């Protein structure tokens, strides 16, 4: 079943076309990977879906409803929550309070109306990412990987059906990356949510996603199962340069 759909999304900044006629569909419960070299338009696509940018052309359809150009807070309230590539914690709040923001203002709003519910939602989200022990610490005492987990927990507390994850493994060690991958799969399985994930680490995304979309210069150049995508000549060219040495930058 389709849950989220992008139709011919286009966004330019001045003369630069950051995303060009990109269409995609996200099926309920899957993990869809979004890869591509730097500047290929991945984060711009996220910004178009989550309401931070308004597309020049095209539509975003969520559960058969056109949500193109909605404000970010409204999009969060219907069930799509994103994380950020650069960590964006609320620096003056504790770990618990950071996640509380998601629980209070996100989709459920006030934890669905029940007084004790906010605390439970926050606790569940912190447990899912493994930060429950650190809930009373200020964010300044967290490590890089913990800050990334906090980013994830906050988004989970907002109660999304679709989670947009932007490079949650950037700056992590291989061991931490492994742990993060497992947690994301666990979260998807336990919460039954749908995940669209941007990742730079190819190995991570190959192991994680059921399908992958490849962007290059704002255009979608491939889509399919991970092993299909890595064997696609166009994808190999984008990542490694042309085989016969015609590409100066690749040789």
């Amino acid at each position, binding site marked *: 079943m389709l849950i989220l759909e992008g139709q011919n999304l286009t966004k330019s900044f001045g003369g630069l076309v950051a995303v060009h006629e990109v269409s995609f569909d996200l099926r309920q419960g899957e993990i869809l990977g979004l890869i591509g070299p730097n500047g290929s338009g991945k984060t711009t696509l996220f910004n178009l879906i*989550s*309401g*931070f940018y308004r597309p020049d052309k095209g539509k975003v359809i969520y559960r058969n409803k056109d949500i193109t150009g909605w*404000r*970010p*807070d409204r999009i*969060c*309230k219907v069930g799509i*929550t*994103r*994380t*950020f590539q*650069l*960590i*964006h*914690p*609320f*620096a*003056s*709040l*504790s770990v*618990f*309070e950071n996640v*509380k*923001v*998601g629980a*209070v*203002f*996100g*989709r459920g*709003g*006030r934890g669905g109306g029940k007084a004790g519910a906010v*605390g439970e939602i926050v606790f569940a989200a912190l447990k899912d990412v493994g930060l429950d022990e650190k*809930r*009373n*610490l*200020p*964010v*300044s005492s967290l490590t*890089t990987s913990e*800050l990334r987990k906090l980013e994830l927990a*906050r*988004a989970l507390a*907002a109660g999304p059906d679709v989670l947009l994850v932007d490079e949650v493994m*950037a*700056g992590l060690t291989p061991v931490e990356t492994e742990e993060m991958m497992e947690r994301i799969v666990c979260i998807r399985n336990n919460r039954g949510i749908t995940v669209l994930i941007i990742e730079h680490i190819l190995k991570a995304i190959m192991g994680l996603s059921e399908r992958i979309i490849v962007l290059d210069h704002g255009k979608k150049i491939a889509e399919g199962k991970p092993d299909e995508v890595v064997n696609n000549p166009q994808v190999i060219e984008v990542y490694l340069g042309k085989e016969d040495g015609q590409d100066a930058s690749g040789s």
Partner: protein
Amino acid sequence: MKVKTAPGSDYLKLSYLACGAGFVILLVLPVLAPNLTAYGIGLLMYVTMAVGYNLQGGYLGDLSFGHAVFFGLGGYAAALLVEHNLINWAPLNVFIGACFAAFFAAVIGLPFLRLKGFYFSIGTLGLSSLLLLVVKNVLSPITKGEAGLMIPPPQPYHIEIFYYSILGIAALSGLVSFLIVRSRCGLAFTAIRDNPEAAAALGINVTACRVTGFALSAFIVGTVGGFYAYYASYINPEGVFAGTISFEVLIMVFLGGAGTLLGPFMGAAAFYVFEEVGRTYIGPGFYLLPALLLILVFLKMPNGIMGLIDGRNKKAVEKVSEVNRAC
């Protein structure tokens, strides 16, 4: 769930106690020391302004350089109703003045709060200069321009009535600000100050919150403006739209600790004493000192007096930018 107690939490309890004791002393001040009543009124006006400014400047982090606008609008709205024989019942006039200031903040907030950071600050600075000229020149047929407006003081005249009115206003403002800060609205304010993008992504309507904070802040400051018009029995453009008012309130809030509940009380009290003593013993040259004080506060104690007392989360912001640079 309770947040881990910070290292300085004993001092924090002490400062709550100190503020409570201060309130009790102020409650009986006109009885104990009648000759200090006028000083008490000055102090309480400063406190209320600082509380109002802190809601927006401290918790939302939108630094206005022109809050004198709302002080002036509250005062002028109250005074004009008297001048044109419309309404003359002090509490109602002050309330209408405050509502007008809040309404004005909400209307200009919509375009102004599209500006971020310094741009918002400079915008409000421009606005206060503009409003001074408008009230002084453009609207002079209504406002009597530079000559100002006289307001006959309410009869019978007792300074204690003024004193207990402003004490009530200050206490009520403190209570309202406490309730807001502890509510989900306060959580939203802090989240927006720390990171507006993340706040929006988690379901907070950033623009609505910022406009609300602006209007609330303007309401409280406008109340003081209306009170001042009655208390001084006179209001003129230079007196209420002056840039010094905007900057003094900013100094008070940062001296006490922006974005803390007790900061504005501490800062206003410290600044008031500093100013009164300085004015008495140094004379006109004193007016250089507040500027110097602001520079010192920013350099040496950016979290103000409350930062020295509480000391929590000092390094948080640095840590985040460090991690983001590393990735």
